[in-house]
């Protein structure tokens, strides 16, 4: 059964970016244009925070009221139950919602991506030491070799009858979960059998690492850097290494809210677009870092945020540095365009790891979670990538490779999933324990 191989079936349909109609006229019948926006204190909320703080929202005649929250489950529920109009969300969350996954799936759409980058994988200094003993380390320059070295450590531990390593992610439907699994699998580690995956709230990661409750984690900035600066962990791979184009966070909203307030949505997208362009300018990063550091936003040291934005990593307790080019991209390279093919890549990973099954309905539900038509409606044709109207390949060009060299063709999801040697077995999930 290969349900999804016919290109023509999806061309010009859901995958297209909609009609070429311009943005709806700026009519003033949508009442107060105050938008309540939920966010989690992370550097990748920068575009949303910049839109509210540096006048971009105001210029479009809208007011962004930012509300800080503590968990993705809260963000999801408060969006569903109208406490928030929009929210800073993990890129897989709208896809999961559309697929009916999770404990409170409620229709959510993403008309705007908040950019790329920010994630990294950190392992405890103890595990890193064991990897060094295995003698096959690639250092910062070769994250794939690091994964293979970890695989050797995992095998030795299993042979010696030791309990499996415990690794932390942030949420079951998170870029971190899929990226960590991707990296592990690329190194030959089965994330469901060879190690134990648990969820750890990002602010607790470095404490959990130093206490030995977990052996490593994949989370967003600035938590990897904080663990590394504290000398409790080593950064072994960044998102750039695993897949540079991976969408990180998106703006999520309820579809009926978007339908009822097309003008507000359009203004919001314009404000976010301007804020994203501004946030990409290196000269603006110092001011951005200052505002992000404030207690009402991230409440983290400004010098760490500045370095995180610049991609300057202290990768080990000895203070060795690595600068990751484009560690944070807020706008360049069409980073804000909500590509349906990326929603489908997320779907492919959900299928790969047994969170859902491959079906025509699932495919269409995933595509409908991302709304390039709203993006285009607000910003016009010029804001779109050249291949916006086709189901583009992912990981097929230089500078945008997956760590294992696979290429994702959204029209051949089943073949893509089968091409991996490590994948979840028919949705069989092993119960996990908490930390």
């Amino acid at each position, binding site marked *: 059964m290969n349900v999804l191989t016919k290109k023509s079936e999806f061309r010009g349909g859901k995958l297209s970016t909609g009609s070429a109609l311009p943005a709806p006229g700026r009519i003033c019948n949508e009442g107060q244009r105050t938008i309540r926006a939920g966010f989690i204190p992370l550097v990748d909320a920068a575009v949303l925070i910049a839109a509210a703080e540096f006048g971009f929202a105001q210029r479009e005649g809208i007011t962004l009221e930012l509300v800080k929250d*503590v*968990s*993705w*489950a*809260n963000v999801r*529920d*408060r969006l569903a*139950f*109208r*406490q928030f109009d929009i929210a800073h969300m993990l890129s897989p969350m709208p896809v999961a919602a559309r697929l009916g*996954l*999770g*404990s*409170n799936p409620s229709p959510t759409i993403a008309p705007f991506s908040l950019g790329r980058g920010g994630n990294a994988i950190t392992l405890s200094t103890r595990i890193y030491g064991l990897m060094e003993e295995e003698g096959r380390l690639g250092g910062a320059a070769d994250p794939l070799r690091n994964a293979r070295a970890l695989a050797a450590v995992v095998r030795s531990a299993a042979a010696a009858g030791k309990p499996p390593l415990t690794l932390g*992610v*942030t*949420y*079951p439907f998170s870029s971190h979960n899929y990226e960590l699994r991707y990296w592990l699998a690329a190194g030959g580690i089965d994330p469901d059998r060879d190690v134990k995956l*648990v*969820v*750890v*709230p990002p*602010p*607790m990661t470095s404490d959990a690492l130093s206490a030995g409750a977990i052996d490593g984690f994949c989370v967003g900035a600035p938590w990897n850097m904080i663990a590394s600066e504290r000398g409790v962990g080593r950064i072994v791979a960044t998102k750039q290494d695993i897949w540079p184009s991976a969408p990180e966070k998106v703006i999520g909203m309820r579809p009926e809210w978007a339908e009822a307030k097309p003008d507000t949505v359009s203004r919001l997208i314009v404000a976010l677009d301007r804020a994203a362009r501004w946030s990409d300018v290196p000269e603006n990063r110092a001011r951005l870092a200052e505002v992000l550091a404030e207690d009402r936003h991230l409440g983290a040291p400004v010098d760490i945020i500045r370095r995180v934005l610049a991609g300057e990593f202290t990768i080990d307790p000895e203070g060795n540095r690595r600068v990751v080019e484009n560690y944070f991209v807020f706008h360049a390279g069409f980073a804000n365009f909500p590509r349906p093919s990326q929603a489908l890549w997320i779907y492919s990973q959900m299928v790969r790891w047994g*969170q859902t099954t491959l079906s025509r309905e699932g495919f269409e539900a995933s595509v409908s979670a991302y709304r390039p038509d709203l993006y285009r409606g607000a910003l016009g044709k010029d804001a779109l990538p050249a291949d916006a109207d086709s189901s583009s390949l992912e990981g097929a060009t230089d500078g945008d490779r997956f760590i294992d060299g696979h290429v994702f063709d959204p029209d051949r999801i089943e073949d893509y999933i089968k091409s991996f040697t490590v994948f979840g077995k028919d949705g069989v*999930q*092993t*119960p*996990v*324990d*908490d*930390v």
Partner: protein
Amino acid sequence: MTHFDLTILVIDENAIRASIIEEGLREAGHGKVTVIHEVHGVARIIETLQPDVIVIDIENPNRDMMEHLFQLTRTVGRPIAMFVDRSDSAAIEAAVEAGVSAYIVDGLRKERVKPILDMAVSRFKAFSRLQRELADAKSALEERKLVERAKGILMKMRGFSEEEAFTLLRQTAMNEKKKIAEIAQSVVTAAGLLIR
């Protein structure tokens, strides 16, 4: 069948609030109530307890951990977040505002769960009211202490009687449209800078 046989797990890092809820549940006739204050080891507790309802405070970042657990454990049935009846938006808003979230095993009839949630919501509210009152009382006490100290300073430095000192503080507060405690604070700060 009554509602009394429901197994309820309360997870709240705030031990006082948790005990207030526990008490409420027991008063309402629920005997099978377990309260934990930290999520460490919660997976095993859930597996052995098999709760029908899990009440957890919304400020608890470990909610995401619970979501993960529900994804992967089959033994817990299929817990769903929070709200039994999506159409009951007033109840939902009340719960979120009060800071309660809950998980309910899918399929549980809503009449059985609604009173539990309502009770949790009202207890959460009562608790935050209590906290607010306590904070107010504390700051009132702090302010009174501050005014006492400022009066003492004025009496000592300017030879005022207690009443004169207080009148000066009050008059200055009125002139500057500030609270008397703020003026008292300035006096105390200034004295700290000037004396010794």
